[in-house]
């Protein structure tokens, strides 16, 4: 059980990194990190971006759930 969830977690983690890197980076670098100019975001997101967002959120939910499950299992397995 622990191994299955660990594998799921590793896979979703890798997928998560990949999906985030696929997003277009918004807001450039350090200069507007602290008190830079006002970055304007013109135009809405395209269909591709929106689907990517949905997919990322879905993966994120699975990722989050498997972290909690694995955390509980490891803790429980230790006691029991």
């Amino acid at each position: 059980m622990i191994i299955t969830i660990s594998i799921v977690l590793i896979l979703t983690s890798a997928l998560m990194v990949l999906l985030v890197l696929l997003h277009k980076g918004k807001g450039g670098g350090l200069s507007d990190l602290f008190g830079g100019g006002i970055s304007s975001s013109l135009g809405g997101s395209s269909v591709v971006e929106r689907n990517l967002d949905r997919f990322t959120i879905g993966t994120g939910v699975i990722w989050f759930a498997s972290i909690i499950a694995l955390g509980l299992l490891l803790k429980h397995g230790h006691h029991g």
Partner: protein
Amino acid sequence: MLTAFTRAFRTPDLRKKLLFTLFIIAVFRLGSQLPAPGVNTGAVHRCVDVVSKGANANVYGLVNLFSGGALLKLSIFALGIMPYITASIILQLLTVVIPRLEALRKEGQAGTTKITQYTRYLTIGLAILQGTGIVAMASTGNLLQGCTEDLLWNKSWFTIVTMVVTITAGTSVIMWLGELVTDRGVGNGMSILIFTQVVAVFPSEFWNIYKTKGGFVFAIVLIVGIAIVAGVVFVEQAQRRIPVQYAKRMVGRRMYGGTSTYIPLKVNQAGVIPVIFASSLLYLPSLIVQMWHSSNPVATFISKYLVKGDHPIYMALYFLLIIFFTYFYVAITFNPTEVADNMKKYGGFIPGIRPGRPTAEYLDYVLTRITAPGALYLGLIALVPMVAFGIIGASQNFPFGGTSILIMVGVGLDTVKQIESQLQQRNYEGFLR
């Protein structure tokens, strides 16, 4: 002030943005509390208690400040925003060295997007490195020295790999959350997340001072803190306006130009970045010494002078580094020759000064002079926590410490200005009058 808030919330567009930002912050804080799978939370908690009373409390204080307490909890967002900041700093420094990056930066929008993309890749790389380091230190017990309990339930390599991968993914999620806020929320996402981390440790720090020092010291701390915040706001807003006159031009049958504007040169053009640079640079040697327990002269020198924040040599070094980095960063971000050339191209000039090279020299002269008080101010503000540490014996991460206060005020002002500009688009009075 309050009416402005209600107005902000009554504007549907703005309300959506504010609520979205709050939601992301909530997700971020939740992730910062959730321990990575395999961490023995109880043991970590007890160990942190032991260590924060020990000799190395300074280093942990700084680490904790930047990660909002997430690192010492070994949470899934343990690395926080640090890898992204480090990656940005590295790329920023590399643009000076590598011609290709400089060419990209001059290209404008497309080039900047590319540099941002490089920053993101580098962030993931750094996250893997730092994540491995932290998990390895946790498993060998080096992370929290002076504590003998096992921080992990299970030290098989499989569990450790899972933790590293999870923490790396956590860092990428933080990056995404920040970008989402920049894109659809209010203000710059990354700085808002840092702001959250810094503010998050405040209440417990305050409570600590109240508990250990009593009501009187607490009141003094509060008053001094508010005075410092007021001072920081004052200096952050200060700028010198250099008048620029644009000549009238005829293009076809229409008149252009003939307006007079100004170039604002802020006293503190560099923002908080010099302080962050300096503190992360000074933090490195003590971290290295902690990882390798060697006793050669360099290591003893470092552990004698550079680990303790209240040592005069450390303070002096910190101060000098901040001043150096202030000038360095202003030189990177503001290029007088470029500004002068642009002005010349559009027929602008500073009254009394010829366009072209004399203008660039004049701008350089003014900027160098105005940065001097700015750099001194940054250095002094950053030293406040250390001096306070000496005087009242408060903990190193005295809440009104330089870095945290600069980050708080800087980000706060910026965000309020953005909300304000959004409000003014709809003809409402803003927050700042």
